[in-house]
């Protein structure tokens, strides 16, 4: 099978997964009756008679008086047309799609920075630990990653807040930017920056370098927390994968040719040790998204995760359902990318 045939096969497999994903979300929204769909799509701004009329219209539109499998297709149709209903929480009230447009960029920014940190820390320490096997620093790294692995992500966040934010006072512990810096700006209104909704990028677009720097500093603690929560697993797996590679014949050959240890590690061993790590990428994305919910809540960082917990606290059906669907979609796409990259890097997978 060549790469194209594999890609097409993998894309076709996406269809049942996506249908299943929507089905799960749909079933969830029906466990406690039809009123959940109504709650999801009824605009919170309507009251009195207008609300009753809108309810009737929704019953007709989603065919809520027909069997549940009929309803599913009408609901799926609405979802596919970008109509994800309404959300009504303390931080945002309005269409779900607008809420996603406002909050998702922040989460993507946070996840991207965390992912870069994970890659830098993970690869460096994982390889170092394997190369200096059984040394004092290897043992220290193993104990450290073992402990991090067992820690709940909120404790990592709180510990960093206490050390870096409260005692050393080097990093701000809440929000995306210092409120005093952004008061009275035309492109930052009610905690929302325009046009990309990521304040770092917006500040740069408007040439406000001071604000951009301030926002970067605000991003550091949440990103480090998220990275530390996930990096422990990477270090452990990379270490054992690197040890396995270092035991291979071609490494022995490279050494017997008289190559320096540095060239052996960096040129021959590391690339192959990273192969199994690629499969971890999907898991990492899942960890980033799940972790983002907790981290954004602790640091009051206005992303999708913060919105999701607000929806939980405010009993907002639209927000919870949309978040489940959105996180699922992101993960499905991430897993697809992992499979394709892996097939590209390692031709054995395709057969």
């Amino acid at each position, binding site marked *: 099978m060549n790469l194209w045939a594999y890609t097409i096969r993998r894309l076709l497999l996406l269809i*049942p*997964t996506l249908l*299943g*994903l929507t089905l*799960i*979300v749909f079933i*969830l*929204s029906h*466990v*406690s009756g039809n009123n*959940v769909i109504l709650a999801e799509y009824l605009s919170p701004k309507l009251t009195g008679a207008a609300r009753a009329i809108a309810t009737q219209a929704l019953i007709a539109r989603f065919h809520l008086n027909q069997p549940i499998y009929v309803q599913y297709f009408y609901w799926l149709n609405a979802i596919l047309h970008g109509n994800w209903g309404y959300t009504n929480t303390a931080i945002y009230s309005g269409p779900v799609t607008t809420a996603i447009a406002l909050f998702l960029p922040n989460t993507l920014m946070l996840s991207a920075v965390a992912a870069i940190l994970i890659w830098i820390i993970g690869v460096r320490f994982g390889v170092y630990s394997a190369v200096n096997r059984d040394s004092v620093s290897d043992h220290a790294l193993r104990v450290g990653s*073992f*402990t991090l*692995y*067992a*820690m*709940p*992500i*909120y*404790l990592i966040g*709180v*510990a960093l*807040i*206490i050390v870096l*934010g*409260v005692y050393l006072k080097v990093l701000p*512990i809440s929000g995306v930017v210092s409120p005093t810096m952004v008061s009275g700006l035309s492109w930052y209104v009610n905690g929302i920056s325009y046009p990309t909704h990521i304040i770092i990028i917006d500040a740069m677009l408007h040439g406000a370098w001071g604000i951009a720097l301030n926002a970067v500093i605000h991003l550091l603690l949440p990103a480090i927390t998220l990275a530390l929560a996930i990096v422990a697993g990477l270090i452990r797996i990379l270490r054992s994968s690197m040890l396995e590679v270092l035991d291979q014949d071609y490494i022995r050959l490279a050494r017997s040719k008289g190559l320096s240890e540095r060239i052996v590690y960096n040129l021959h061993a590391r690339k192959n040790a990273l192969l199994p790590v690629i499969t971890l990428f999907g898991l990492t994305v*899942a*960890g980033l*998204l*799940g972790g983002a*919910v*907790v981290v954004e*809540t*602790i640091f009051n960082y206005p992303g999708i995760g913060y919105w*999701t*917990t607000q929806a*939980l*606290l405010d*009993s907002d059906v639209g927000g*919870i*359902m949309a*978040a*489940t669907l959105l*996180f*699922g979609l992101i*993960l*499905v796409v991430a*897993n697809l990318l992992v499979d394709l990259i892996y097939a590209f890097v390692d031709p054995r997978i395709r057969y």
Partner: protein
Amino acid sequence: MNQERAKRWDNTKLSIRVFLANRTALVGLIIVLIYVADALIMQFDPGLLGITQVNTLVPNFTNPVPLPPSWAHPFGTTFPGVDLYTSILKAIRIDLFYSILVVAVGSVAGAVIGVISATVGGLLDETVMRITDIFFSIPYLILALAIGFILGRSLMYMSLALALVWWPLYARYTRSQTLSTKEFTYVEAARASGVSRTRIMFRHILPNALPPVFIQISLDLGSIMVIFSTLAFIGFIANAKVPELGYLTSLGLNYVQTAPWAVIFPGVAITVFALAVNLLGDGLRDVIDPRRRS
């Protein structure tokens, strides 16, 4: 017969020796036992540790701001005037109970589905595997959050939601264990000597395929407890008086700048348990895996 018994005893002795040789695993075991002992005392005789109301936190509204550790409050207090030492002792029982519930429900459901899927095979197997695929395509924290939200914000529903999210993992693991056990020569020998299919399944395959599955699952207890407390931390508990470690941590969150102990002690209590279970797991794996017995 006697010889066989002696051989088995030798085997057990070797297992115990292998386990004891791993000091960290022993430490893990002791810590886990301390947590279990605490849970049992709380269940049957909380007065032993001077605790009266096991199922609720006792607030003190005349002095709600967190106080630092002292003789009266060894771990200090958290908002609203709740003593942390006794609350953590109470919370361990609740966390342990619901985590075990998650593992039990999730693993039994997963194991049954996995075994059936592996034995029947064909279309059913394919369908089950695709269903697990779909479950894996949603981050578990989010899915548990959504399911729990729909069912209702309580500890029982929260653990049910986690079990619902967790079974696909166990179904897959059980399935692959069953399938690989099926290929062993002794199973083939049984088949060749005319043993019936059901007898092979129950007498030859399952007794060998399931124990590693259940040991693996019990080792997940630490991670499950961490996730359970994380859900409680982000606001899953609607009842303000539930002694739960994640919830206890969240109570102190607004005071983190002035009262760090209020978030550190409950958080450390859960980390120590998860760490102990993981250490214990490493030791047990040495015992189970004959290749690591050298």
